[in-house]
Protein backbone atom coordinates (compact mmCIF):
# COMPACT_ATOMS: atom_id res chain seq x y z
CA UNK A 1 0.00 0.00 0.00
CA UNK A 2 1.30 3.39 -0.98
CA UNK A 3 -0.75 6.41 0.00
CA UNK A 4 0.79 8.53 -2.73
CA UNK A 5 2.19 7.82 -6.18
CA UNK A 6 4.66 10.04 -8.03
CA UNK A 7 5.93 10.42 -11.57
CA UNK A 8 9.70 10.32 -11.16
CA UNK A 9 10.83 10.10 -14.78
CA UNK A 10 9.49 11.08 -18.19
CA UNK A 11 10.37 10.81 -21.84
CA UNK A 12 8.77 11.97 -25.07
CA UNK A 13 9.53 11.08 -28.67
CA UNK A 14 9.32 13.51 -31.52
CA UNK A 15 5.72 13.33 -32.79
CA UNK A 16 4.97 13.26 -36.50
CA UNK A 17 5.52 11.00 -39.48
CA UNK A 18 8.20 8.68 -38.18
CA UNK A 19 9.25 6.48 -41.06
CA UNK A 20 12.79 6.58 -39.70
CA UNK A 21 12.01 4.16 -36.84
CA UNK A 22 10.04 0.95 -36.16
CA UNK A 23 7.67 0.40 -33.23
CA UNK A 24 10.30 -0.80 -30.73
CA UNK A 25 12.73 1.96 -31.66
CA UNK A 26 9.99 4.57 -31.32
CA UNK A 27 9.17 3.24 -27.83
CA UNK A 28 12.81 3.35 -26.82
CA UNK A 29 13.04 6.98 -27.91
CA UNK A 30 10.81 7.97 -24.96
CA UNK A 31 11.80 5.15 -22.58
CA UNK A 32 15.47 6.05 -22.53
CA UNK A 33 14.99 9.63 -21.26
CA UNK A 34 12.42 8.30 -18.75
CA UNK A 35 15.07 5.96 -17.31
CA UNK A 36 17.62 8.77 -17.33
CA UNK A 37 15.43 11.35 -15.58
CA UNK A 38 14.40 8.78 -12.95
CA UNK A 39 18.01 7.63 -12.66
CA UNK A 40 16.85 4.02 -13.03
CA UNK A 41 17.61 1.07 -15.28
CA UNK A 42 15.25 -1.44 -16.93
CA UNK A 43 16.03 -3.99 -14.19
CA UNK A 44 14.51 -1.63 -11.59
CA UNK A 45 11.05 -1.76 -13.22
CA UNK A 46 8.68 -4.16 -11.41
CA UNK A 47 5.67 -3.88 -13.70
CA UNK A 48 5.01 -2.13 -17.00
CA UNK A 49 1.94 -1.04 -18.88
CA UNK A 50 1.73 -0.46 -22.63
CA UNK A 51 -0.92 1.81 -24.05
CA UNK A 52 -1.55 1.00 -27.69
CA UNK A 53 -4.75 1.03 -29.72
CA UNK A 54 -3.09 -0.72 -32.63
CA UNK A 55 -4.93 -2.23 -35.62
CA UNK A 56 -3.13 0.05 -38.08
CA UNK A 57 0.31 -1.12 -37.00
CA UNK A 58 2.07 -4.45 -37.36
CA UNK A 59 3.02 -5.57 -33.86
CA UNK A 60 0.15 -6.47 -31.52
CA UNK A 61 2.17 -7.94 -28.63
CA UNK A 62 3.91 -4.67 -27.83
CA UNK A 63 4.54 -5.52 -24.16
CA UNK A 64 6.44 -8.66 -25.24
CA UNK A 65 8.19 -6.72 -27.97
CA UNK A 66 9.43 -4.21 -25.40
CA UNK A 67 10.21 -6.88 -22.78
CA UNK A 68 12.66 -8.16 -25.37
CA UNK A 69 13.95 -4.88 -26.81
CA UNK A 70 14.33 -3.02 -23.49
CA UNK A 71 15.35 -5.91 -21.22
CA UNK A 72 12.12 -5.85 -19.23
CA UNK A 73 11.52 -9.62 -19.40
CA UNK A 74 10.35 -11.44 -17.28
CA UNK A 75 8.57 -8.58 -15.45
CA UNK A 76 4.79 -8.43 -15.50
CA UNK A 77 3.01 -6.30 -18.06
CA UNK A 78 -0.34 -5.39 -19.54
CA UNK A 79 -1.50 -3.84 -22.81
CA UNK A 80 -4.29 -1.34 -22.32
CA UNK A 81 -6.78 0.01 -24.86
CA UNK A 82 -9.34 2.77 -24.31
CA UNK A 83 -9.30 4.34 -27.77
CA UNK A 84 -7.74 7.83 -27.59
CA UNK A 85 -7.74 7.64 -23.77
CA UNK A 86 -5.57 4.51 -23.73
CA UNK A 87 -2.62 6.46 -22.33
CA UNK A 88 -4.53 7.62 -19.27
CA UNK A 89 -5.99 4.15 -18.82
CA UNK A 90 -2.42 2.81 -18.75
CA UNK A 91 -1.44 5.41 -16.17
CA UNK A 92 -4.43 4.30 -14.11
CA UNK A 93 -3.26 0.68 -14.23
CA UNK A 94 0.26 1.66 -13.14
CA UNK A 95 -1.11 4.02 -10.51
CA UNK A 96 -3.46 1.45 -8.98
CA UNK A 97 -0.73 -1.22 -9.07
CA UNK A 98 1.44 1.00 -6.89
CA UNK A 99 -1.39 2.27 -4.71
CA UNK A 100 -2.44 -1.31 -3.98
CA UNK A 101 1.10 -2.33 -3.06
CA UNK A 102 1.49 -4.80 -5.93
CA UNK A 103 4.46 -2.80 -7.25
CA UNK A 104 6.71 0.02 -6.10
CA UNK A 105 8.04 1.10 -9.48
CA UNK A 106 6.00 0.87 -12.68
CA UNK A 107 6.72 2.07 -16.18
CA UNK A 108 3.96 3.32 -18.46
CA UNK A 109 4.62 3.64 -22.16
CA UNK A 110 2.16 4.97 -24.75
CA UNK A 111 2.93 4.16 -28.37
CA UNK A 112 1.16 4.51 -31.68
CA UNK A 113 2.56 4.04 -35.15
CA UNK A 114 -0.47 5.01 -37.20
CA UNK A 115 1.41 5.60 -40.40
CA UNK A 116 2.28 1.95 -40.89
CA UNK A 117 -1.10 1.95 -42.69
CA UNK A 118 -2.23 4.32 -45.46
CA UNK A 119 -4.41 7.26 -44.31
CA UNK A 120 -7.70 5.93 -45.81
CA UNK A 121 -7.34 2.72 -43.78
CA UNK A 122 -6.69 4.72 -40.61
CA UNK A 123 -9.81 6.84 -41.31
CA UNK A 124 -11.79 3.62 -41.76
CA UNK A 125 -10.48 2.02 -38.55
CA UNK A 126 -10.78 5.07 -36.33
CA UNK A 127 -14.45 5.52 -37.29
CA UNK A 128 -15.12 2.16 -35.69
CA UNK A 129 -14.39 3.37 -32.13
CA UNK A 130 -18.09 4.07 -31.46
CA UNK A 131 -20.97 1.67 -32.04
CA UNK A 132 -19.65 -0.41 -34.91
CA UNK A 133 -22.89 -2.19 -35.79
CA UNK A 134 -25.48 0.60 -35.52
CA UNK A 135 -23.54 3.75 -36.35
CA UNK A 136 -20.55 2.75 -38.47
CA UNK A 137 -21.81 -0.21 -40.51
CA UNK A 138 -24.77 1.64 -42.01
CA UNK A 139 -23.94 5.30 -41.68
CA UNK A 140 -20.16 5.48 -42.12
CA UNK A 141 -19.47 7.74 -39.17
CA UNK A 142 -15.88 8.91 -38.96
CA UNK A 143 -14.03 10.19 -35.92
CA UNK A 144 -14.36 13.83 -37.07
CA UNK A 145 -18.05 13.25 -37.86
CA UNK A 146 -18.84 12.00 -34.35
CA UNK A 147 -17.38 15.16 -32.87
CA UNK A 148 -18.87 17.34 -35.63
CA UNK A 149 -22.31 16.24 -34.38
CA UNK A 150 -21.30 17.82 -31.06
CA UNK A 151 -19.85 20.93 -32.73
CA UNK A 152 -23.10 21.54 -34.63
CA UNK A 153 -25.23 21.03 -31.53
CA UNK A 154 -23.00 23.46 -29.64
CA UNK A 155 -23.25 26.15 -32.32
CA UNK A 156 -27.04 25.75 -32.57
CA UNK A 157 -27.56 25.96 -28.82
CA UNK A 158 -25.17 28.73 -27.84
CA UNK A 159 -24.54 30.75 -31.00
CA UNK A 160 -20.82 29.93 -31.22
CA UNK A 161 -19.37 30.15 -34.73
CA UNK A 162 -16.92 28.22 -36.89
CA UNK A 163 -14.53 31.13 -36.30
CA UNK A 164 -14.70 30.44 -32.56
CA UNK A 165 -13.66 26.86 -33.23
CA UNK A 166 -10.85 28.14 -35.47
CA UNK A 167 -9.52 30.24 -32.57
CA UNK A 168 -8.71 27.02 -30.69
CA UNK A 169 -6.59 25.81 -33.61
CA UNK A 170 -4.82 29.17 -33.81
CA UNK A 171 -3.93 29.05 -30.10
CA UNK A 172 -2.74 25.46 -30.17
CA UNK A 173 -0.59 26.01 -33.26
CA UNK A 174 0.83 29.13 -31.61
CA UNK A 175 2.17 26.98 -28.77
CA UNK A 176 2.92 23.95 -30.94
CA UNK A 177 5.32 26.20 -32.85
CA UNK A 178 7.32 26.47 -29.60
CA UNK A 179 7.35 22.73 -28.89
CA UNK A 180 10.26 20.89 -30.54
CA UNK A 181 8.42 17.56 -30.12
CA UNK A 182 5.31 18.73 -31.99
CA UNK A 183 4.21 17.42 -35.38
CA UNK A 184 3.31 20.92 -36.66
CA UNK A 185 5.69 23.59 -35.42
CA UNK A 186 4.01 26.31 -37.39
CA UNK A 187 1.67 29.15 -36.45
CA UNK A 188 -1.56 29.60 -38.39
CA UNK A 189 -4.29 32.25 -38.53
CA UNK A 190 -8.07 32.04 -38.51
CA UNK A 191 -8.17 32.41 -42.27
CA UNK A 192 -6.00 29.31 -42.75
CA UNK A 193 -8.53 27.29 -40.77
CA UNK A 194 -11.58 28.82 -42.44
CA UNK A 195 -10.21 28.28 -45.94
CA UNK A 196 -9.20 24.66 -45.40
CA UNK A 197 -11.45 21.98 -46.94
CA UNK A 198 -14.33 20.40 -45.02
CA UNK A 199 -13.62 17.03 -43.43
CA UNK A 200 -16.95 16.65 -41.59
CA UNK A 201 -18.99 19.85 -41.55
CA UNK A 202 -18.57 22.11 -39.56
CA UNK A 203 -15.00 20.83 -39.13
CA UNK A 204 -12.38 21.67 -41.69
CA UNK A 205 -8.92 20.20 -42.09
CA UNK A 206 -7.40 22.65 -39.60
CA UNK A 207 -10.05 21.86 -36.99
CA UNK A 208 -8.72 18.31 -36.85
CA UNK A 209 -5.79 16.71 -35.07
CA UNK A 210 -3.48 14.82 -37.43
CA UNK A 211 -2.59 11.16 -37.87
CA UNK A 212 0.59 10.78 -35.86
CA UNK A 213 3.40 8.40 -34.92
CA UNK A 214 4.84 8.89 -31.47
CA UNK A 215 5.54 7.57 -28.00
CA UNK A 216 5.65 8.95 -24.46
CA UNK A 217 6.79 7.33 -21.25
CA UNK A 218 6.49 7.93 -17.50
CA UNK A 219 7.92 6.03 -14.57
CA UNK A 220 5.73 5.86 -11.46
CA UNK A 221 6.95 5.19 -7.93
CA UNK A 222 5.51 4.71 -4.47
CA UNK A 223 6.08 7.30 -1.76
CA UNK A 224 8.47 4.92 -0.03
CA UNK A 225 10.55 4.47 -3.20
CA UNK A 226 10.66 8.21 -3.76
CA UNK A 227 12.16 8.56 -0.27
CA UNK A 228 14.50 5.60 -0.67
CA UNK A 229 15.84 6.80 -4.01
CA UNK A 230 16.02 10.41 -2.80
CA UNK A 231 14.09 11.69 -5.82
CA UNK A 232 13.98 15.50 -5.98
CA UNK A 233 12.26 16.08 -9.28
CA UNK A 234 8.82 14.52 -9.25
CA UNK A 235 5.14 15.27 -9.42
CA UNK A 236 2.37 13.50 -7.51
CA UNK A 237 -0.89 12.08 -8.80
CA UNK A 238 -3.41 13.88 -6.62
CA UNK A 239 -6.53 12.40 -8.10
CA UNK A 240 -7.95 10.63 -11.08
CA UNK A 241 -11.49 10.08 -12.28
CA UNK A 242 -12.73 7.92 -15.11
CA UNK A 243 -16.10 7.76 -16.80
CA UNK A 244 -17.65 5.71 -19.60
CA UNK A 245 -20.29 6.78 -22.12
CA UNK A 246 -22.74 4.80 -24.24
CA UNK A 247 -21.52 3.23 -27.47
CA UNK A 248 -24.36 4.73 -29.54
CA UNK A 249 -24.50 8.51 -29.62
CA UNK A 250 -28.26 8.08 -30.05
CA UNK A 251 -28.42 6.70 -26.50
CA UNK A 252 -27.21 10.02 -25.06
CA UNK A 253 -29.26 12.88 -23.70
CA UNK A 254 -27.28 15.79 -25.15
CA UNK A 255 -24.53 16.69 -27.59
CA UNK A 256 -23.09 19.89 -26.14
CA UNK A 257 -21.23 18.11 -23.35
CA UNK A 258 -19.71 14.71 -22.59
CA UNK A 259 -21.36 13.03 -19.60
CA UNK A 260 -18.33 10.78 -19.04
CA UNK A 261 -16.10 13.86 -18.79
CA UNK A 262 -18.31 15.57 -16.24
CA UNK A 263 -18.39 12.36 -14.22
CA UNK A 264 -14.61 11.89 -14.38
CA UNK A 265 -13.95 15.53 -13.47
CA UNK A 266 -16.19 15.34 -10.44
CA UNK A 267 -14.36 12.24 -9.16
CA UNK A 268 -10.91 13.70 -9.81
CA UNK A 269 -11.70 17.03 -8.14
CA UNK A 270 -13.18 15.28 -5.14
CA UNK A 271 -10.19 12.98 -4.75
CA UNK A 272 -7.70 15.85 -5.08
CA UNK A 273 -9.64 18.12 -2.71
CA UNK A 274 -10.45 20.72 -5.37
CA UNK A 275 -13.58 22.85 -5.06
CA UNK A 276 -15.77 21.82 -8.00
CA UNK A 277 -17.37 25.25 -8.17
CA UNK A 278 -14.08 27.00 -8.82
CA UNK A 279 -11.38 24.60 -10.01
CA UNK A 280 -9.41 27.33 -11.82
CA UNK A 281 -8.49 28.74 -8.43
CA UNK A 282 -6.44 25.58 -7.79
CA UNK A 283 -4.85 25.05 -11.20
CA UNK A 284 -1.85 26.54 -12.99
CA UNK A 285 -2.96 25.09 -16.31
CA UNK A 286 -4.44 22.14 -18.13
CA UNK A 287 -4.18 19.81 -21.07
CA UNK A 288 -7.54 18.95 -22.56
CA UNK A 289 -8.47 16.53 -25.33
CA UNK A 290 -8.57 18.76 -28.42
CA UNK A 291 -8.76 16.00 -31.03
CA UNK A 292 -10.88 18.63 -32.78
CA UNK A 293 -11.37 22.31 -31.99
CA UNK A 294 -14.94 22.23 -30.64
CA UNK A 295 -14.20 19.51 -28.06
CA UNK A 296 -11.62 21.78 -26.42
CA UNK A 297 -14.36 24.35 -25.85
CA UNK A 298 -16.72 21.66 -24.55
CA UNK A 299 -13.91 20.45 -22.24
CA UNK A 300 -13.66 23.92 -20.65
CA UNK A 301 -17.29 23.50 -19.64
CA UNK A 302 -17.20 19.84 -18.62
CA UNK A 303 -14.20 20.67 -16.40
CA UNK A 304 -16.06 23.70 -14.99
CA UNK A 305 -13.49 26.26 -16.09
CA UNK A 306 -16.61 28.26 -17.00
CA UNK A 307 -20.38 27.83 -17.05
CA UNK A 308 -22.15 25.69 -19.66
CA UNK A 309 -22.50 27.66 -22.89
CA UNK A 310 -19.66 30.06 -22.11
CA UNK A 311 -16.66 28.03 -23.24
CA UNK A 312 -16.47 29.75 -26.62
CA UNK A 313 -16.16 33.09 -24.83
CA UNK A 314 -13.04 31.86 -22.99
CA UNK A 315 -11.25 31.27 -26.29
CA UNK A 316 -12.73 34.40 -27.90
CA UNK A 317 -11.25 36.44 -25.04
CA UNK A 318 -7.98 34.48 -25.21
CA UNK A 319 -8.36 33.41 -21.58
CA UNK A 320 -6.74 30.03 -22.25
CA UNK A 321 -3.43 31.51 -23.40
CA UNK A 322 -0.59 31.96 -20.90
CA UNK A 323 -1.51 35.04 -18.88
CA UNK A 324 -5.25 34.33 -19.17
CA UNK A 325 -7.55 32.74 -16.63
CA UNK A 326 -6.12 29.27 -17.27
CA UNK A 327 -3.55 28.25 -19.91
CA UNK A 328 -4.75 25.21 -21.88
CA UNK A 329 -2.79 23.00 -24.27
CA UNK A 330 0.30 25.14 -24.28
CA UNK A 331 2.26 22.21 -25.68
CA UNK A 332 0.23 22.54 -28.88
CA UNK A 333 -2.44 20.08 -27.81
CA UNK A 334 -3.45 17.13 -29.93
CA UNK A 335 -4.18 19.62 -32.70
CA UNK A 336 -0.63 20.79 -33.29
CA UNK A 337 1.55 18.47 -31.22
CA UNK A 338 -0.13 15.48 -32.86
CA UNK A 339 -2.36 12.66 -31.65
CA UNK A 340 -0.67 9.25 -31.63
CA UNK A 341 -3.72 7.57 -30.07
CA UNK A 342 -2.06 5.40 -27.41
CA UNK A 343 0.64 7.95 -26.57
CA UNK A 344 -1.59 11.00 -26.06
CA UNK A 345 -2.60 10.45 -22.42
CA UNK A 346 0.99 9.70 -21.42
CA UNK A 347 2.17 12.75 -23.36
CA UNK A 348 -0.21 14.86 -21.27
CA UNK A 349 1.41 13.47 -18.10
CA UNK A 350 4.86 14.33 -19.48
CA UNK A 351 3.62 17.86 -20.12
CA UNK A 352 2.26 18.15 -16.55
CA UNK A 353 5.73 17.11 -15.28
CA UNK A 354 7.49 19.63 -17.52
CA UNK A 355 5.15 22.50 -16.68
CA UNK A 356 5.09 21.94 -12.92
CA UNK A 357 8.87 21.52 -12.73
CA UNK A 358 9.32 24.57 -14.97
CA UNK A 359 11.07 22.59 -17.69
CA UNK A 360 8.91 23.70 -20.62
CA UNK A 361 10.58 25.31 -23.63
CA UNK A 362 10.90 29.13 -23.82
CA UNK A 363 7.65 30.89 -24.68
CA UNK A 364 5.38 28.08 -23.47
CA UNK A 365 6.12 27.85 -19.75
CA UNK A 366 3.11 28.68 -17.59
CA UNK A 367 3.48 30.58 -14.34
CA UNK A 368 3.55 27.94 -11.64
CA UNK A 369 2.08 29.39 -8.45
CA UNK A 370 -0.29 26.72 -7.21
CA UNK A 371 1.71 23.70 -8.35
CA UNK A 372 -1.27 21.84 -9.79
CA UNK A 373 -1.94 20.73 -13.38
CA UNK A 374 -4.92 18.95 -14.92
CA UNK A 375 -5.06 16.44 -17.79
CA UNK A 376 -8.34 15.58 -19.57
CA UNK A 377 -8.11 12.65 -21.98
CA UNK A 378 -11.11 11.39 -23.94
CA UNK A 379 -11.43 8.08 -25.78
CA UNK A 380 -13.78 7.90 -28.75
CA UNK A 381 -16.45 10.60 -28.45
CA UNK A 382 -16.80 10.58 -24.69
CA UNK A 383 -16.90 6.81 -24.75
CA UNK A 384 -14.22 7.03 -22.08
CA UNK A 385 -12.88 10.05 -20.21
CA UNK A 386 -10.01 10.24 -17.75
CA UNK A 387 -9.31 13.36 -15.72
CA UNK A 388 -6.04 13.33 -13.80
CA UNK A 389 -4.74 15.97 -11.38
CA UNK A 390 -0.99 16.29 -10.88
CA UNK A 391 0.75 18.32 -8.19
CA UNK A 392 4.17 19.39 -6.95
CA UNK A 393 3.08 18.70 -3.39
CA UNK A 394 1.12 15.73 -2.06
CA UNK A 395 -1.87 17.95 -1.34
CA UNK A 396 -3.48 20.93 -3.01
CA UNK A 397 -3.33 24.31 -1.38
CA UNK A 398 -6.76 25.93 -1.03
Amino acid at each position, binding site marked *: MSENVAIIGTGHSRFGTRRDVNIAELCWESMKPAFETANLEPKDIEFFVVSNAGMWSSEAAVPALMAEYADLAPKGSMRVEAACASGSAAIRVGYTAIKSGMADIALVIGIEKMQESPNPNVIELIGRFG*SYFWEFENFGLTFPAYYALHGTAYMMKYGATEEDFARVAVKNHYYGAKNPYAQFQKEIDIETVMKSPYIAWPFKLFDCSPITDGSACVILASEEKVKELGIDEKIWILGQGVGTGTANL*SRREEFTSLASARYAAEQAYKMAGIDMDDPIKYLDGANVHDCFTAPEIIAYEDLRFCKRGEGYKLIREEQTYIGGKIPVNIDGGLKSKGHPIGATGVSQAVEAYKQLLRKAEPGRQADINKGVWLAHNVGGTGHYTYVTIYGLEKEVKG
Partner: protein
Amino acid sequence: MDKMKEQVMKNMEELGFPVIVDEKSGAMQWVDMRELRLRYIISIENIKPFYEGLKEGKLMGTKCKKCGRVFFPPQKDCPSCLDSDMDWVELKKEGTLETMTVVFVRPPSFGQYDPYPVAIAKLDDGPRILAWYNGDPQQVKPGQRVKVQVSRRREGYLMYELAPL
Protein backbone atom coordinates in the same frame (compact mmCIF):
# COMPACT_ATOMS: atom_id res chain seq x y z
CA MET B 1 -0.77 2.94 -54.04
CA ASP B 2 -0.44 1.36 -57.48
CA LYS B 3 2.70 3.37 -58.07
CA MET B 4 4.08 2.06 -54.78
CA LYS B 5 3.24 -1.54 -55.73
CA GLU B 6 5.10 -1.12 -59.01
CA GLN B 7 8.13 0.26 -57.19
CA VAL B 8 8.06 -2.60 -54.68
CA MET B 9 7.94 -5.17 -57.48
CA LYS B 10 10.86 -3.46 -59.19
CA ASN B 11 12.90 -3.29 -56.00
CA MET B 12 12.13 -6.89 -55.17
CA GLU B 13 13.65 -7.92 -58.47
CA GLU B 14 16.66 -5.60 -58.26
CA LEU B 15 17.43 -5.59 -54.51
CA GLY B 16 15.88 -8.89 -53.50
CA PHE B 17 13.41 -7.47 -50.96
CA PRO B 18 9.95 -5.78 -50.89
CA VAL B 19 11.32 -2.39 -49.92
CA ILE B 20 10.85 1.23 -50.89
CA VAL B 21 12.56 4.44 -49.91
CA ASP B 22 10.10 6.92 -48.39
CA GLU B 23 10.11 10.00 -50.61
CA LYS B 24 9.91 12.59 -47.83
CA SER B 25 12.29 11.17 -45.24
CA GLY B 26 14.52 8.98 -47.39
CA ALA B 27 13.99 6.21 -44.84
CA MET B 28 13.91 2.60 -46.02
CA GLN B 29 10.54 0.83 -45.59
CA TRP B 30 9.63 -2.87 -45.78
CA VAL B 31 6.26 -3.21 -47.52
CA ASP B 32 4.27 -5.97 -45.81
CA MET B 33 3.63 -8.98 -48.02
CA ARG B 34 0.66 -10.12 -45.88
CA GLU B 35 -2.63 -8.39 -46.59
CA LEU B 36 -5.68 -8.85 -44.36
CA ARG B 37 -9.28 -8.27 -45.44
CA LEU B 38 -11.80 -8.01 -42.62
CA ARG B 39 -15.51 -8.79 -42.79
CA TYR B 40 -17.33 -9.69 -39.59
CA ILE B 41 -20.23 -12.14 -39.22
CA ILE B 42 -22.51 -10.59 -36.58
CA SER B 43 -25.44 -12.36 -34.90
CA ILE B 44 -28.86 -10.70 -35.29
CA GLU B 45 -30.76 -13.79 -34.13
CA ASN B 46 -32.37 -11.95 -31.21
CA ILE B 47 -33.33 -8.81 -33.12
CA LYS B 48 -34.87 -10.51 -36.17
CA PRO B 49 -38.21 -8.68 -35.66
CA PHE B 50 -36.39 -5.39 -36.19
CA TYR B 51 -35.44 -6.44 -39.72
CA GLU B 52 -38.83 -7.99 -40.45
CA GLY B 53 -40.40 -4.67 -39.43
CA LEU B 54 -37.94 -2.60 -41.42
CA LYS B 55 -38.81 -4.60 -44.54
CA GLU B 56 -42.41 -3.41 -44.10
CA GLY B 57 -41.33 0.16 -43.50
CA LYS B 58 -41.69 -0.05 -39.71
CA LEU B 59 -39.22 1.04 -37.04
CA MET B 60 -39.26 -1.50 -34.24
CA GLY B 61 -37.85 -1.30 -30.73
CA THR B 62 -38.07 -3.54 -27.71
CA LYS B 63 -40.09 -2.79 -24.58
CA CYS B 64 -39.58 -4.52 -21.24
CA LYS B 65 -42.82 -6.21 -20.19
CA LYS B 66 -41.98 -5.69 -16.54
CA CYS B 67 -40.92 -2.02 -16.35
CA GLY B 68 -41.97 -0.65 -19.72
CA ARG B 69 -38.52 0.65 -20.64
CA VAL B 70 -38.18 1.11 -24.41
CA PHE B 71 -34.92 0.29 -26.18
CA PHE B 72 -33.70 1.64 -29.50
CA PRO B 73 -31.49 0.28 -30.91
CA PRO B 74 -33.43 -2.76 -29.70
CA GLN B 75 -31.85 -4.95 -27.06
CA LYS B 76 -32.76 -8.40 -25.88
CA ASP B 77 -32.27 -7.87 -22.16
CA CYS B 78 -33.47 -5.26 -19.66
CA PRO B 79 -30.74 -4.32 -17.16
CA SER B 80 -33.30 -2.45 -15.01
CA CYS B 81 -35.18 -5.65 -14.20
CA LEU B 82 -32.54 -8.27 -15.03
CA ASP B 83 -35.33 -9.64 -17.18
CA SER B 84 -35.48 -10.64 -20.84
CA ASP B 85 -39.23 -10.74 -21.38
CA MET B 86 -39.60 -8.16 -24.13
CA ASP B 87 -42.37 -6.93 -26.40
CA TRP B 88 -41.56 -5.69 -29.88
CA VAL B 89 -43.18 -2.29 -30.35
CA GLU B 90 -43.48 -0.07 -33.40
CA LEU B 91 -41.97 3.38 -32.81
CA LYS B 92 -43.60 6.51 -34.17
CA LYS B 93 -41.59 7.52 -37.21
CA GLU B 94 -41.58 11.25 -36.56
CA GLY B 95 -39.36 13.42 -34.47
CA THR B 96 -37.22 16.51 -34.17
CA LEU B 97 -33.70 16.86 -35.53
CA GLU B 98 -31.16 17.64 -32.80
CA THR B 99 -27.85 17.83 -34.63
CA MET B 100 -26.15 16.96 -37.90
CA THR B 101 -22.92 16.78 -39.87
CA VAL B 102 -21.89 16.14 -43.44
CA VAL B 103 -19.19 13.52 -43.85
CA PHE B 104 -16.88 14.77 -46.61
CA VAL B 105 -13.84 12.57 -45.99
CA ARG B 106 -15.37 9.09 -46.11
CA PRO B 107 -14.00 5.71 -45.03
CA PRO B 108 -12.86 3.70 -48.07
CA SER B 109 -15.72 1.24 -47.48
CA PHE B 110 -18.13 4.16 -48.15
CA GLY B 111 -16.14 5.33 -51.17
CA GLN B 112 -19.01 4.73 -53.59
CA TYR B 113 -21.12 7.42 -51.91
CA ASP B 114 -21.00 11.21 -52.29
CA PRO B 115 -20.50 13.19 -49.05
CA TYR B 116 -23.43 12.18 -46.85
CA PRO B 117 -25.30 14.13 -44.16
CA VAL B 118 -25.79 12.33 -40.85
CA ALA B 119 -28.32 13.52 -38.29
CA ILE B 120 -29.53 12.62 -34.82
CA ALA B 121 -33.23 13.07 -34.13
CA LYS B 122 -35.35 12.60 -31.03
CA LEU B 123 -38.41 10.56 -31.92
CA ASP B 124 -41.74 11.72 -30.54
CA ASP B 125 -41.91 8.41 -28.67
CA GLY B 126 -38.74 9.25 -26.75
CA PRO B 127 -35.78 7.31 -28.19
CA ARG B 128 -33.18 9.00 -30.35
CA ILE B 129 -32.05 7.77 -33.74
CA LEU B 130 -28.88 8.40 -35.75
CA ALA B 131 -29.12 7.99 -39.52
CA TRP B 132 -28.33 9.49 -42.89
CA TYR B 133 -30.35 12.62 -43.62
CA ASN B 134 -32.01 12.49 -47.03
CA GLY B 135 -32.49 16.20 -47.58
CA ASP B 136 -30.62 19.45 -48.11
CA PRO B 137 -28.46 20.11 -45.04
CA GLN B 138 -28.37 23.83 -45.93
CA GLN B 139 -32.15 24.04 -45.44
CA VAL B 140 -32.13 22.52 -41.96
CA LYS B 141 -33.42 24.85 -39.25
CA PRO B 142 -33.33 24.49 -35.47
CA GLY B 143 -36.29 22.36 -34.42
CA GLN B 144 -36.48 20.78 -37.89
CA ARG B 145 -39.19 18.11 -37.96
CA VAL B 146 -38.14 14.83 -39.56
CA LYS B 147 -39.57 11.45 -40.46
CA VAL B 148 -38.01 8.01 -40.58
CA GLN B 149 -38.25 6.22 -43.91
CA VAL B 150 -36.73 3.14 -45.47
CA SER B 151 -34.65 3.18 -48.62
CA ARG B 152 -32.58 0.72 -50.56
CA ARG B 153 -28.84 1.26 -50.38
CA ARG B 154 -26.49 1.08 -53.36
CA GLU B 155 -25.11 -2.13 -51.89
CA GLY B 156 -28.65 -3.52 -52.33
CA TYR B 157 -29.91 -3.72 -48.73
CA LEU B 158 -32.71 -1.86 -46.93
CA MET B 159 -31.92 0.69 -44.26
CA TYR B 160 -33.71 3.45 -42.38
CA GLU B 161 -32.95 7.10 -42.98
CA LEU B 162 -34.19 10.50 -41.85
CA ALA B 163 -35.91 13.00 -44.16
CA PRO B 164 -37.44 16.44 -43.64
CA LEU B 165 -41.14 16.42 -42.81
